[in-house]
């Protein structure tokens, strides 16, 4: 693993009018590592994702990508430079087959005489191969995406981002709506993407999902970074406590136990 971060934010703030959404946030991800971004609702996760993905420009602070100071004007620009974001709502068309979804907007073509046609054999085969690399055996690439489980859909989205050359993969709560088993499936793909040398930023509010896959953990609370810990500095229990804001949780526990 290289030591220089692939993507780094230094003291980034984002203001919307008088609202301070992010204040002096610093974080980084290295190639082949998973940075987990933990935060409860309202912690500023969404704003941070959008800033990373090129939707928002930082109000203050600097964004470094591949060692250079960078300003992304649009998500498209960030994507072209290799920063792929898989949003919760996935950008998938449920009624379309897996392979059509996989290549939607970037269809491979071939020439038959003067006519350009969609190279469907290549698309189907590549979809199957790329999914196999993620450890998923597609039953049938012609299946509509709507028939896949939530975890499988996430993995199609991740495989697609990886195939189209993502160097940094930003995953917005990929396990949020999933059951225990499905979440496990997605966590496995996250490690697979990491092993292929991609820098993964994994956003979640669930420390139990973050702990097994993360290399280091950034805790976001009320728009600021509460701490940035590498895996050997922190235990799962400490993560849980910090996430909820330790004191708050103690108070809650006390309150509940006295009522009972």
């Amino acid at each position: 693993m290289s030591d220089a971060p692939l993507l780094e934010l230094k003291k980034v703030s984002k203001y919307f009018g008088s609202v301070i959404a992010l204040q002096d946030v610093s974080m980084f991800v290295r190639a082949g590592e998973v940075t987990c971004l933990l935060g409860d609702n309202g912690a500023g996760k969404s704003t941070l994702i959008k800033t990373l993905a090129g939707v928002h420009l930082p109000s203050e602070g600097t964004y470094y990508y591949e060692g250079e100071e960078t300003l992304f004007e649009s998500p498209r620009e960030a994507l072209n430079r290799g920063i792929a974001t898989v949003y919760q709502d996935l950008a998938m068309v449920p009624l379309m087959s897996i392979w059509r979804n996989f290549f939607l907007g970037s269809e491979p073509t071939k020439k038959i005489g003067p006519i350009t046609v969609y190279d469907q054999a290549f698309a189907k085969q590549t979809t199957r191969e790329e999914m196999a690399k993620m450890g998923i055996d597609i039953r049938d690439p012609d299946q509509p995406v709507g028939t896949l489980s939530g975890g499988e859909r996430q993995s199609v989205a991740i495989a697609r981002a990886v195939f189209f050359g993502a160097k940094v993969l930003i995953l917005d709560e990929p396990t949020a709506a999933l059951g225990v088993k499905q979440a496990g499936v997605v966590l496995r793909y996250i490690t697979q993407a990491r092993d292929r040398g991609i820098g993964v930023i994994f956003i979640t509010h669930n420390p139990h999902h973050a702990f097994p896959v993360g290399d280091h953990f950034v805790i976001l609370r009320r728009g600021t970074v509460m701490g940035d810990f590498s895996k050997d500095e922190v235990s799962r229990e400490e993560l849980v406590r910090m996430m909820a804001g330790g004191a708050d949780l103690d108070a809650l526990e006390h309150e509940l136990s006295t009522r009972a």
Partner: protein
Amino acid sequence: MTTEVAPETADEADKPAAAPDERVREVSWFDRLLSRPEVGALIALVVVWIGFAIIASDNNFVSMATTAAILNRAAPLGILAVAVSLLMIAGEFDLSIGSLVGFIGMAVMLMVTSSAQGGWALPLLPTLLLTLILALAVGWFNGTLVLQTKLPSFIITLGSLFIFRGLAVAIPRTRTGRSQLGNFDDTPGFGFMDAVFGQKISIFGANFDIAILWWVGITLLLVFVLRRTRVGSWIFGVGGDANAARNVGVPVNRLKTALFMTTAVAAFLVAVLQIVQFNGADSLRGTQQEFNAIIAAVVGGTLLTGGYGSVLGAALGALIFAMVQQGIIITGVDGDWFKVFVGAILVLAVIFNNALRQRAMKR
């Protein structure tokens, strides 16, 4: 109609599933066929045909002449329906095409009619070119208005329906005092037009319109576009989830505008075919064809909300429509009943297609 599954013993269930096979299930060719959008229309077509073959066996339903009559009826509707199905799969409606058939027809006739009768006395080629541009402009206008206002295309093109039907009546009335313009065969170049658009092909004594060939050709072309090109993939994607498609770089607005222009060109073609066939134009020509085309597309398995459907299905839908119409005529049933049948078939087809689609999604 589920695939038979051998009863599992408790032991088998506890075993770790042998990797990848656990997830693969044989899907029979029959199940695969049933998961295609146009299969409902195919079944309906066979049922309707057999039904009339039995009911109308004394009236020569199974004959070359009746077959020709059905196909001649189906062709103009089919041309509109296949174009409309693409637009519907992309998630939009075009209710203006029926009016546009009347409007373009009158425009062509006004341009070629002599100035003594209130026309512009233009030669044929510039007339066709100008009216084609006019049709493209209407399609562009519909599409642009829908996309700019973000209003439902149903409303925008419902407006166009009235506007162009009104213009098709008002302009010729103002200039010529008539709402029907005839004698297209006086126009220099009619021989060529008749050969290309009006010819009848005689097979075993029955006359088949050349419009059938246009219909088949356009259907094949659009089937190819939808299923074999990247634009086809975009059409499904845009109709399924326009935002998702836009996020991955599909030019949503350009695509939809182009599809509105495609339906307008289909209306232009039908207008020209019918001018040659009927030797003139009528302000009311194409009335209700916009709804008939939508019915054909929906019967053919196209989802009203977009993202799913078939060009071939729309062509089959038009064929069913024409078959019912012709069947009722030759059976001698009062023509007033036709609409009852069409409405019933539409509702049944949608229910049936929905059931089939849900089955396909569970496969």
